């Protein structure tokens, strides 16, 4: 699913005294099979931007093309209903959306809405529960008896069961401990790799996650995209990131201190990789 935004802008409460421009002049091009991160500090407009991608918000300026659908200002929400089949969305604290009597019924909500048959739905529920690591014995329990972490898994399974091609992840690991955070991100990574056309768009201000789990970054500040590129490209200008009230990952910071020329390369931005890279530089720059 190709996603392309051209000069997209959105103003809340247009024409009222409470008018507020949230994003403007956004150009984005996301081919199928991408791992994208939209980074920015709180209030930079990143959540507003991604809510356009499945038609929850309709732009007030510019155009947005998602697959075959082109969205223009003034279009009705109703006609965009079908977009939600192909673009799934995991909101911040998704466990707040649970409502059904059992875990199984809650996960089945999206497939039921999208008209999957009974058998198909049951199969999707089972597979989604497996993908997020929920034990089958939990399916008949009430989601409200579960622990916070399990509830979040149920909620995410509920999105995956809709069988989206593109997944929007709005701070999916917020409030989790480091181990839970990593497990959560690994899970989305596995989901994305299962099919070549699957993409995800990670919205976060956690630069380590953006570095490790995205191949391309969009940096937002005050409603506009101020930088874009691969993590390595973006992290070459810490000063510009600072202007956007963001920081480079700790690994980049340390390596820049050691090697001012910036001739290091990182993939996972994790401790062991960083240590190897430091060792390589200290040995005189040759390969390990």
């Amino acid at each position, binding site marked *: 699913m190709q996603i392309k935004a051209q000069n997209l802008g959105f103003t809340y409460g247009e024409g009222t005294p409470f008018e507020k421009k949230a994003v403007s002049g956004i150009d984005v091009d996301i081919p199928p099979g991408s791992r994208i991160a939209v980074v920015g500090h709180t209030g930079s407009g990143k959540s507003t931007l991604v809510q356009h991608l499945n038609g929850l918000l309709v732009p007030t300026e510019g155009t947005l093309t998602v697959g075959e659908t082109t969205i223009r200002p003034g279009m009705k929400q109703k006609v965009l209903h079908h977009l939600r089949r192909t673009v799934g969305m995991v909101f911040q604290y998704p466990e707040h959306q649970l*409502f059904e009597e059992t875990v199984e019924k809650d996960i089945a909500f999206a497939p039921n809405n999208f008209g999957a048959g009974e058998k198909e739905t049951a199969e999707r529920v089972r597979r989604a529960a497996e993908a997020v690591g929920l034990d089958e014995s939990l399916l008949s329990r009430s989601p409200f008896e579960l622990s916070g972490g399990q509830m979040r898994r149920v909620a995410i399974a509920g999105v995956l069961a809709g069988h989206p091609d593109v997944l929007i992840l709005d701070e999916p690991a917020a409030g989790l401990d480091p181990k839970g955070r990593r497990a959560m991100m690994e899970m989305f990574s596995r989901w994305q790799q299962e099919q070549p056309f699957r993409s995800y768009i990670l919205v976060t201000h956690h630069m380590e996650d953006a570095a490790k789990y995205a191949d391309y970054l969009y940096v937002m500040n005050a409603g506009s995209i101020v930088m874009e590129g691969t993590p390595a490209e973006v992290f070459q200008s810490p000063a510009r990131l600072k202007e956007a009230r963001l920081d480079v990952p700790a690994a980049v910071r340390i390596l820049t201190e050691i090697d001012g020329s910036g001739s290091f390369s990182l993939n996972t931005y994790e401790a062991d990789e960083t240590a190897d890279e430091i060792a390589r530089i200290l040995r005189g720059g040759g390969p390990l």
Partner: protein
Amino acid sequence: MRSMILGQYVQGDSFIHRMDPRAKLTGLFLFLLVMFLANRPAALIPAAAFACFVFLMTRIPVRYLLKGLKFIAIMVIFLFLFRMLMTREGTVLLDLPWLPIYEEGVRDGAVFAGRLFLLMVMATVLTLTTTPIELTDALERLFKPLQRLGVPAHELALTMSIALRFIPTLFSEMEKIMKAQMARGASFSDGSIVKRIKALIPLLVPLIIQSFRRAEELAVAMEARGYAGSEGRTRFRQMVWRASDTRVLFTVVLTGICIFALRG
């Protein structure tokens, strides 16, 4: 419900805005009482004049009020018709085959509707010029004498201000849950009424659960900061009753005397 302005507050610095909220509440109550003296439409003229006068003093654009009163006006007209058709006394004015209209019915309906309309206008003026916090403070103060009779004045006022405080929070919460369910293919604006009501379940269940959780957190947070009820509590916002406040109440009484004089 864009057209409903009862309950909204418009910032301003008029005499009415600056009045003691206790005086405004007492005034509204007195106004309601004196309107009961009217037994024919003409007797309501002083009350209408008073309402106009007060509204002009708030310096809020008249157009804003008129737009906001549309809904109330429709309700009042409906009630007038209902009242008129139900009363069957006096001479027949219009002898329709199924619904004869009586003189007494028109009179009674007009007084009833006029009273209700003026009361709604004044209640709107009250909320337009008084912040919710001022209102709850005033209510607490006015109900304080009833505390001896076991009325928990402070608790009632606190409950009300908490409720008002959390309305915007609940709204944004609702919007978020709505979007999350829409992302899962829910639709809140399609299909029959039964379908639409059913569609509310995925919205209401999370909203109620969240509210309970939030209530518990708020209770803990208040206790952690030493909240122990009204006992020994001092106030940050002090209310001052001025001579002008008394004069306004006196004007309401004067309006009442005029109404009494105009009784038929």
